[in-house]
């Protein structure tokens, strides 16, 4: 009986949450509309052209999916560090390092005569290692150096970008002029196979889905995930409860780096087929936004990341069709996150008034 009411209460809370979040979404849309009207642009057409841009044709849908896969990966990575109470801002650099490692291995092996699929696999593995290494650097700085992961991460992002530029204009310079266009593209057999006639590689999607499943179960059903949560919510108590805290923090960085590195590897093998200056495509930061929106729920990241990817891809049509600035999609994303957080704050306030009595559990502790 007790269990049933608890379950129904939980279900009720979920629905309350969902309705609050939808309210935030509607509000964000409304505000964006007001902004569009204020500058004299037709909002309906703007939204339509974003939709058409993202889903108008098979090619458009695939393009959206191309952006979706790495975004899912970074979101999953960030969710792990979130759970441990860490703000892994350094994820951008971790994606970048993944890309660099992948490029490195592909360059090293492309003349080796090994079968191309093996080179690709090795390249992706190297990317994972690269991301994990870079992340563990931030983790070591945090756990042993006492450097806040936000600052450490920012610093490491900086180094990663500088390293990319140096490689592109230095040692890995293409013949002729070193170019912002990146290193020389890899031969087509070293590309992760794409759906014929399109740019989308189903492998990238498959890997991302695996990541979602893994993270979902990791955070939900494993001792490791529960301990991460405990460390994230109260490190001292977690320690007293027997959780080796710094080890878990480091491990969360490492795992996040694995997913970030994989995202970077896919950027190289599936999307750009070379190393370019901003190879991370801001997926790390966008992943942080998605993670903030979904608040630890790995499965929710799937639609939210898709929505963000669609906004990014669809907004391309704004300047072409409407001569509208495409930063509209960014505005919408930013507003969305802001409003969801605000609404969440409001919800907590309202709910705390209702549920948590001012005197903790008044009356609950009657004589026993």
């Amino acid at each position, binding site marked *: 009986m*007790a*269990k049933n009411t*608890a379950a129904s209460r*939980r279900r009720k809370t979920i629905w309350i949450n969902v309705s609050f979040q939808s309210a935030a979404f509607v509000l964000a849309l409304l505000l964006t509309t007001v902004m569009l009207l204020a500058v004299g642009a037709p909002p309906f057409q703007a939204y339509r052209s974003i939709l058409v841009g993202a889903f108008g044709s098979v090619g458009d849908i695939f393009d959206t999916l191309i952006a979706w896969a790495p975004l899912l990966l970074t979101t999953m990575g960030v969710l792990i560090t979130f759970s441990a109470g860490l703000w892994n801002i350094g994820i951008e650099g971790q994606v970048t390092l993944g890309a660099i490692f992948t490029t490195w291995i592909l360059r090293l092996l492309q003349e080796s005569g090994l079968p191309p699929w093996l080179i690709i696999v090795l390249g992706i593995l190297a990317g994972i290692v690269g991301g994990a290494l870079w992340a563990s650097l931030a983790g070591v700085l945090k756990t042993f150096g006492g450097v806040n992961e936000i600052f450490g991460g920012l610093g490491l992002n900086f180094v990663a970008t500088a390293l990319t530029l140096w490689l592109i204009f230095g040692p890995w310079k293409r013949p002729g002029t070193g170019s912002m266009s990146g290193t020389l593209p890899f031969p087509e057999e070293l590309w992760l196979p794409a759906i014929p006639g399109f740019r989308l590689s189903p492998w990238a999607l498959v890997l991302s889905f695996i990541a979602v499943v893994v993270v979902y*179960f990791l955070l939900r*059903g*494993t*001792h*490791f995930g*529960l*301990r991460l*949560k*405990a460390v994230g*919510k*109260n490190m*001292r*108590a*977690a*320690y*007293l*409860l*027997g*959780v*080796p805290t710094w080890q878990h923090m480091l491990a969360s960085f490492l795992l996040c780096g694995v997913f970030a590195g994989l995202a970077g590897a896919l950027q190289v093998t599936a999307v750009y087929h070379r190393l370019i200056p901003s190879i991370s495509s801001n997926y790390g930061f966008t992943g942080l936004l998605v993670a903030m929106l979904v608040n630890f729920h790995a499965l929710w990241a799937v639609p939210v990341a898709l929505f963000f990817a669609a906004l990014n891809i669809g907004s391309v049509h704004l300047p072409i069709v409407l001569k509208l600035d495409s930063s509209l999609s960014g505005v919408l994303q930013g507003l969305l996150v802001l409003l969801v957080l605000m609404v969440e704050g409001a919800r907590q306030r309202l709910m705390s008034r*209702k*549920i*948590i*009595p*001012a*005197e*903790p*559990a*008044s*009356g*609950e*502790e*009657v*004589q*026993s």
Partner: protein
Amino acid sequence: MDVELRDIHKTFGKVRANVGIRLHVPAGTIQGILGENGAGKSTLMKVLSGFIHADQGAILLDGRPVVIHSPADAIRAGIGMLHQDPLDFPPMRVIDNFVMARGGSLFPGRAAARRDLKKLAAQFGFALDPDAYVDSLTVGERQQLEIVRLLWLGARVLIFDEPTTGISAAQKERLFAALRLLADQDKTVLFVSHKLEDVEGLCDRVVVLRQGYLVGEARPPYTTRQLVEMMFGKAISIGKRVPCAVGETSLRLRNLSVEDYRLKVRGVNLAVRAGEVIGLAGMEGSGQGLFMRAVAGLLRTTGGRISLDGRNLTGRSHLVSKRHGVAFLPASRLEEGLVPGLDLTEHFVLAEKKGGFFIDWEGGRALAEERIAEFNIRGTPASHVEALSGGNQQRALLALLRVSLRLLLLEHPTRGLDIESTIYIWSKLKERCGQGTSILFVSSDLEEILQYSDRVLVFFNGRVSPPLEAAEMNTDRLGELIGGKGWPEEEWVEEMTADG
């Protein structure tokens, strides 16, 4: 100021926190408000001070009805409340905290404020340094700051919520003197407590709340039995001292030293036998906290040796000592002991540490249910720990302990709990002693120390007494030692190494 509460009702969901409460307190009175945890005292006071809005009822000040929607309204009306946890800003100076709440002009008149602060403090005999940082103050000093601040803001009704929790005996005396002075100045003092002795010693009159109802009133001379009956609806006695049968020496400390930036504890020698209970007495911050944490492996020692059952644990982390049967229960339950945001099942799964990669949630829930029943915790496996009351949190902490332990270290195990919970918790602890677990506990409650300890260590400013037989002590002697009186000039050497 004359305060009248008329027919106050407040419910939280299904819980009726206040039911039709009527209370009239004339100016110049110290009104005691007594009741066990959860009786509705704090709710009533929060209604009066604007933190909570009553569902029904009226508040009259000097006979005029007032509407109070926020703490700011309350202070404007002359009502100020001191919370159990002072609502100050630790990283700031005393003077900054002092002027903080005063709105009005952009630039606080700091010089004038400083004068006022000093004058007010002197009036009550408080030694408050305006330039000290608040986080360097003791709980008692923070209370003092809060009192003068509220007076400065014009409070004529002062509400004290459990003010004697966590302060030293000397500070308590000073506090009581201050409260009497306030009453003499015709201020109204509402004194909320569940401690009979405090109420008996201080209040001009007492009301008792139970389960949301105001169940009785009393005037001096009070009889303890009558108050207890009103609080609990039945008479309760603490019971006789029960010494445990003790066994072989389990914990042995040799020349243990530990220090932090402001305090050094040097050369402690102690041998604790299995099943023995050692009480650590002393004013807060006298070194007992450092000592406990050093023994737990949470603080690095600066010298000496810790061994448990012949195993050297010196310099080993808490995770290692935990494996060898040591457990530490911190005083701040939600800050250090439990993980807010996780439910009870998750806590039991965490603490139990079974093998395997995936969690057996069914097993976890079953375990949680079993322990919840065993420890009489008011909650379900899905209850989040922060939603539990203090007493239930403490029970949960005990329930989380592993089945067999060699050494249990507790900080203020019953702080903030009512008598019943206290008795329950100690019965559980004594059960452990019977199973051969040694217990070291810190408490500021001298009665508790003498009641439950076999031997006592007294801490004063980093100095540590040799273990004293609790049966041969009394509160007066203990109080003197805690206050730094009666310590020999030389190091205390009597029977330092009791049996080894």
